[in-house]
């Protein structure tokens, strides 16, 4: 594994290795000294063309706990906003000796372009590209599910909401399928992407139908900035048909967990009482995110890389 671009690139063994590694690394967060010397002397660049504070600080915390040097590069206020291209930015980072680039970009495929070009020699980690993928989010979700539900083989996961714009949904669908879980996507017809029938999932327009058998329900954020009248009639109607309220939550099996990648619109896709209930693992997802990202960085950078003696 040289890069992490898509959750679909991971074999079952690779995904399991990342999750197992993360499990061991989770304990680092509970220690008085939350630091491992593993990536000392390595430089990791967080290259964020799109704002995302939580993903960036999660990657930053992960890299720092492994003793790597972290450079945060945000497009806002940088030369990118003056028209510098991805290529020139990448060449600059390469010249600075970046061992890994964690990239978030508004264009789907930007991480792939970076990884397959000669612009950078380092490992590329996709931290969300356009509406395409967000593999580390899928890994931390799988990690959270695994810690509550055990092996994911045969488990039923329902993902609800704006699948069309959600890279989280796509990455989760691919990874959960690799891990043997059954995924049901629930969304209004207007918010399911074209070609969803080729995904390894079932789809439904009716949330109530899939509640009873769900082992985990993942609510997706309604991205108000991307919404306009053509996707659904009104926020109230969306909330009534696709929001997770207490009544719906109570119809879930006792062991089922409620997830959300954050940030939440309380009262829109998820009720405030649901978000704060003891079935909600939303805060845990954040903690697990750091451990999973540590595992990814360790497995990409911890060993010999090209050019060093293998």
């Amino acid at each position, binding site marked *: 594994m040289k890069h992490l671009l898509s959750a679909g690139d991971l074999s079952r063994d690779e995904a399991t290795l990342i999750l197992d590694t993360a499990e*061991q690394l989770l304990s680092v967060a509970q220690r008085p000294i939350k630091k491992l010397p593993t990536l000392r002397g390595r430089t990791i660049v967080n290259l964020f063309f799109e704002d995302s504070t939580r993903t960036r600080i999660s990657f930053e915390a992960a890299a720092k706990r492994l003793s790597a040097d972290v450079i945060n590069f945000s497009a806002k206020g940088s030369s990118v906003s003056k028209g510098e291209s991805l290529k020139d930015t990448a060449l600059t980072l390469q010249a600075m000796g970046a061992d890994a680039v964690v990239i978030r970009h508004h264009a789907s495929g930007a991480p792939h372009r970076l990884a397959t070009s000669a612009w950078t020699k380092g490992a590329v980690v996709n931290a969300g590209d356009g509406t395409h993928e967000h593999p580390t989010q899928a890994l931390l979700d799988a990690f959270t599910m695994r810690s509550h539900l055990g092996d994911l083989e045969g488990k039923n996961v329902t993902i609800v909401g704006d699948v069309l714009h959600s890279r989280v949904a796509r990455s989760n669908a691919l990874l959960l399928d690799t891990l043997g879980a059954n995924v049901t996507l629930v969304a209004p017809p207007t918010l399911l992407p074209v070609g969803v029938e080729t995904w390894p999932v079932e789809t439904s327009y009716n949330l109530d139908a899939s509640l009873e058998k769900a082992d985990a329900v993942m609510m997706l954020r309604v991205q108000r900035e991307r919404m306009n009248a053509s996707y659904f009639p009104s926020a109230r109607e969306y909330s009534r048909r696709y929001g997770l309220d207490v009544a719906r939550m109570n119809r879930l099996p006792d062991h089922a967990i409620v997830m959300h990648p954050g940030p939440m619109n309380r009262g829109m896709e998820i009720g405030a009482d649901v978000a704060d209930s003891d079935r909600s693992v939303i805060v845990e997802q954040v903690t697990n995110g750091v451990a999973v990202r540590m595992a990814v960085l360790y497995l990409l950078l911890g060993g010999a890389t090209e050019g060093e003696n293998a």
Partner: protein
Amino acid sequence: MRRRRRSALSTVMDATDISRALTRITHEILERNRDAEGVVILGIPTRGVELAERIAAKMAEVEGTTIKPGALDVTMYRDDLRLKAPRALERTNVPEDIDGRVVVLVDDVLMSGRTIRAALDALSDLGRPKAVQLAVLVDRGHRELPIRADFVGKNLPTSKSEKVRVRLTETDGADDSVSIEGSDA
């Protein structure tokens, strides 16, 4: 007649020898540290963990108390990480606070000393033990760092081209044994 090259396995310790060595190490640990309550036994994966469990069980038997052994994975602290493909992490499980306690590290084979160096670094991130002692089943020499074991099951002078193979029931699913494999120059 030329001596046959020792390419096959030659067993140097069998199950009885190993058991006897561990019993002796246990008594030595107890003798050195009068207060068994203040001792934390940590095995280094993979086989060190099993040896630590056995030593802890024997200690508990002698002292009539319960002693919980732990595991300390040193992968993230190794100095050869950049030389090989990244390896999977093993289990770390430290049952008790190690501050002010005597930690006995347990491993199967002591050679270069680099694993133990990594273990000492890992320990210092976990707390500040009063003292750290080292118990190994086999010491085969070839040290690359100034590290010495406190308790040794068997000193086994070997050539660098030989391999010492430790097998333990739970880890390897075979009878306990220590054997030497490789060419006899």
